[in-house]
């Protein structure tokens, strides 16, 4: 273990399609997190922004953009990008600054104003960019990759479209109780089955939407938390930041092919389970110690994959765990009690921070109707384009 940092404050901007600037969303989330911490902006020593590449230059220097919006006050400033893992990388950066003594109070902000429809690569003629190439040569959208994994689960484990729909039904039920979620209505299995196929076997309601949204955290040293009179703060105990191992033999975004494994070589360590394992090792706990998990359900089928990668069940047993009700609110190990991406949609640099906001609310016992009783430890996990893996463990 490398030491803990305290969550001094958490704040979000509701997800949706609001038609406003990412700066506005992020600044509102930041102010909410500061208010939650009971701290003035002037007391913040460092700002870490998770970048949004869609929002031009300000989005790519997001730390400075939010610092300027809140009012220049001389704080250290950092901007990070790691695709879907950007928010977790921002948290990791803040934690490293706190643990090294560079800063006692750090504001972490992620915000996005996402376009409608499929995410697309940056423009121009750029055949040296794997993300550009997969659209150019194959028209392979993100849902196409989610669908390849979903179909593979059906063939390997016997998962069905009804199992996938069950994930949506479960997450929509939880999201209906979350004021920050974009979609706040229950969804039925019939509604999932009646939605159009996007990429066989996945339907529109199996795939997360793109959304605007923002989330922010104020992190601090344990000493700072004590000084502020916080007797039992939520603590971040681990932030995993692993990359895949070569050869990477699982086909994943944005690649057209996997690495090849040399003849006779043993299979390499699969990527997604290694993300969670690193977090467990750092936190000194295991799946049996968890009260809840927030996972990146870009598609319903992918949520089932995460159950297995987190060690909540064995390989191929995700659908069984779901059918037993273990991962629903009130179950043994609720997954995505926030409603997940199914209810939020995806606001890329904000989502991993929003996951930690949900852990914070749950661990404080402030999650209202979606409260996981007696929550004492939670994990988040997500995966970003180009080999970024991230997982955060928080305890109280």
């Amino acid at each position, binding site marked *: 273990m490398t030491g803990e940092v305290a969550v001094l404050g958490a704040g979000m901007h509701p997800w949706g399609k609001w038609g406003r600037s990412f700066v506005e969303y992020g600044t509102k989330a930041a102010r909410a997190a500061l208010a939650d911490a009971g701290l003035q902006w002037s007391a913040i020593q460092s700002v870490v922004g998770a970048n949004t590449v869609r929002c031009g230059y300000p989005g790519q220097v997001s730390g400075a953009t939010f610092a300027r919006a809140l009012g220049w006050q001389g704080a250290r400033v950092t901007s990070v990008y790691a695709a879907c893992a950007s928010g977790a990388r921002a948290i990791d950066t803040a934690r490293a600054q706190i643990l090294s003594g560079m800063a006692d109070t750090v504001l972490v902000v992620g915000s996005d104003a996402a376009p409608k429809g499929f995410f697309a690569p940056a423009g121009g003629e750029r055949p040296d960019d794997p993300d550009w190439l997969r659209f150019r*040569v194959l*028209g392979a*959208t993100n849902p196409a990759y989610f669908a*390849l994994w979903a179909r593979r689960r059906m063939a390997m484990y016997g998962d069905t479209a009804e199992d996938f729909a069950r994930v949506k039904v479960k997450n929509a039920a939880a999201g209906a109780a979350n004021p920050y979620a974009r979609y706040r209505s229950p969804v039925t299995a019939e509604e999932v089955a009646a939605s159009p196929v996007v990429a*066989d076997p996945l339907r529109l309601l199996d795939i997360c939407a793109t959304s605007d949204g923002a989330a922010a955290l104020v992190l601090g040293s344990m000493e700072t938390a004590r000084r502020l009179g916080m007797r039992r703060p939520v603590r971040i105990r681990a932030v995993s930041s692993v990359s895949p191992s070569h050869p990477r*033999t699982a086909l994943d975004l944005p690649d057209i092919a996997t*690495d*090849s494994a*040399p003849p006779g070589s043993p299979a390499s360590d699969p990527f997604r389970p290694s993300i969670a394992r690193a977090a467990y090792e750092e936190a000194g706990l295991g799946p049996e110690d968890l009260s809840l998990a927030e996972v990146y359900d870009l598609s319903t089928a992918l949520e089932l994959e995460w159950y297995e990668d987190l060690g909540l069940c064995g390989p191929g047993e995700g659908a069984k765990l779901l059918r037993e009700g273990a991962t629903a609110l009130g179950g043994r190990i609720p997954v995505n009690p926030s409603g997940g991406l199914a209810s939020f949609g995806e606001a890329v640099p904000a989502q991993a921070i929003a996951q930690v906001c949900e852990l914070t609310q749950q661990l404080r016992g402030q999650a209202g109707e979606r409260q996981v009783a007696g929550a004492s430890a939670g994990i988040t996990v997500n995966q970003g384009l180009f080999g970024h893996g991230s997982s955060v463990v928080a305890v109280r």
Partner: protein
Amino acid sequence: MSPTRVPVVDGWFSSEGGEFRLLGTCCRGCGAVYFPREDVFCRAPGCAGTELTEMPLSRRGRVWSYTDGRYRPPAPFPSGPEGEWRPYTLIAVELAAERMVVLGQGAPGVTVADLAVGMEVEVVPGVLGEEGGRTLTTWHWRPVAEEAS
């Protein structure tokens, strides 16, 4: 005059010698195989190799998974004139010799109903679309017809 035919990306496939093949590269130091081709540095972590030679990939493999695209993908996919979108299949194929999975579009007429995980497929030349008066060529995966035994 028929439109010029150009590969959608140079150096990824060839019909030299009459047989259509995907072209990867192979590190002379450690034998690692790359597709799309890696021409400058070997990416194996324990290898400092910089000599990579072109290598045709296996013509046949087995379906690892498959899907289709029911909605038009965004640019730079050359989806032709605005009009009705016709879904195409995407097939991920496991090549046994290279121990790698390569994604490609299914040949025209191949739908998800024609496919199953584990089915044998072969690589064939195909057309991706028309763009700027040119025909962009590519590779397609096509199920191998049952051979009489």
